[in-house]
């Protein structure tokens, strides 16, 4: 008999006695009600790159409070886009005080991003 078994059994019964509901940990695990698989095949290659670009664009657009298609330093700060804040000067090649999504994309490409 394994040495730890009495401890396990004792402990299991104690837990049940305490609240009737032992906790479960099943990592990873999805409860049956949440098991809704995506019908979309997983993206890869160019489709994944497009998805990455969409994610960046979505964050950019969410920060663009005025809907001008560009961000000011203040808008980037308010949206917690620290990356844009830190590289704002470099991205703002026109020195317009605002950066567009294309500015961001070009900057990321110069750093080696494949988007």
């Amino acid at each position, binding site marked *: 008999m*394994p*040495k*730890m*078994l009495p*401890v*396990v*059994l*004792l*402990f*299991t019964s*104690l*837990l*049940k006695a*305490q*609240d*009737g*509901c*032992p*906790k*479960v*940990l*099943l*990592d*990873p*695990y*999805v*409860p*049956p009600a*949440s*098991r*809704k*698989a*995506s019908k*979309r095949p*997983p*993206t*890869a*290659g160019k489709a*994944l*790159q497009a*998805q*990455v670009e969409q*994610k*960046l664009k979505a*964050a950019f657009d969410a920060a663009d409070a005025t809907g001008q298609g560009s961000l000011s330093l203040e808008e980037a700060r*308010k*949206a*917690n*886009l*620290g*990356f844009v*804040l*830190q590289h704002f000067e470099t991205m703002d090649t026109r020195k317009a005080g605002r950066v567009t999504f294309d500015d961001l994309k070009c900057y*990321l490409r110069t*750093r*080696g*991003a*494949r*988007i």
Partner: protein
Amino acid sequence: MSCSEALMMLIDQESQWFLWLRAFGSALLLCLALACSSRSGAPAVDVPAVPQATFQDPNSYAAHGSAALTTPNEGSAVSRHSISLNGGTLAYTATAGHLTAVHPQNGSAEASFFYVAYTLDGAVPATRPVTFFYNGGPGSASVWLHLGSFGPKRLVTGTPDPNPPTPFPLVDNQETLLGATDLVFVDAVSTGHSQAIAPYTNSSFWGVDADAAIFRDFITRYVALNHRQTSQKFLFGESYGTTRTAVLAHMMESAGMRLSGIVLLSSVLNYNANADMLDASGYGGFFPSYASSGAYWNLTRPVPADDAALGAFLQSVRTFTATRYAPALDAFLNHGAAPDATLFPQLSSNTGLPESSWNANFNLDAWTFRTTLRPGVLLGRYDARVSAPVGSPLAQGGDPSSSVITVPFASALSQYLRVTLGYSAGSSYTISSNAIQGWNFHHDGLDLPDVIPDLGTALALNPSLQVLSLNGYHDLATPFYQTELDLARLSLQPTVEIAVYHGGHMIYLNDASRPRITADLLSFYQRAATAR
């Protein structure tokens, strides 16, 4: 429905899964003879005085979804230790306590995070790397990585022995990463001693996005308080912790907190591709893990004689899976196409299961594999090398490899926090909460998370980000081949590396693998140091 009824339903519906015992309680005073760490010995460097202090936290922390803390504190216990390592001595400070995660935009206090940090004495914080470790679940405390993997102390588990001596001895860890990085083990909200702060409740952070965001906010607080802004930063997550890592890495890079590297241990990066997370889905991604497990039990034909032979064997199994089994499975599941009978001999020889099993169950799920590979024996889900006779107490939990470690880890952690680190609270440490039952898995437009695009976005924002994927041959929860397929979607990212080791989900418990993993991790930290 009562809680216990709900649980029984869960067991009925999901009989291949089972209970991890919530392991904590007053009855668990197993009298571990934990000696306090030696404080003797000359430090290797000129160490500034660090005041030691125990901390009796006045708070009690609750794990349930509606729990909300009203009196958070940032108190901590600080203790000094040393470890003999590679002929030298490392002196370090352990800090165990709470930090408050604050919303970056509205400034509200969101959650009180419990953490244990190990920092090398005498090092300059600004240039010293720091790594944040967490387990997954969701709903698991970080006890497994904390006391099993690469911290300064670890438990001796005897894995894969199903009947190891207990309590597990706690020893100085010769494979600690402390020489390369400071280590911060942090518990997710509702686990350990971590809790949401009112008006938020624990369940406010029970979701893929909310959870990653709150981890970002904890790290922000830790970094600011400890002046680690210029330190190289690393994330180290296990299982669901890898899902968290991908989303968190994207969030951190976006927020301007540059990461140097991330370690993905036993990954689940796309829930839509792991058949065990779904109903009626193809188990092709598991097949190479069935093969390595069959090989471990000497049931494959042939049995690989050594590591080189195992490598060649698994390479051929990957090819067979990709070119023959997976396409046939796809046709079978989606179009009802009868399997090609010529597949059965190889399905059998590669795993050790008879052809009749494959004939009867072409999409062979992991539970069937674990219960039929060796008649009368249940193999572990986390580690298929751990087995127990069907009907034995160890098998009753559904996963012998999980049952065998849970109580010893839980009891050791409680002792360790109180006795060695000097921290205690008014409540017991929560090894696992109910978070998984109430978790919002929705992410990025899908009902179940696919976080490869998050990883891709993090890499777009920071192409120098080093990614290391660590996997176990005998892990039947997050199979290595599926992870290889998931990461391959990123196609030829030069900074992404994948390694597979002997062992299960918690590969670090394997004594033979741990030194190899540490060596690979040290190379990884070296690469990250020069990739800036």
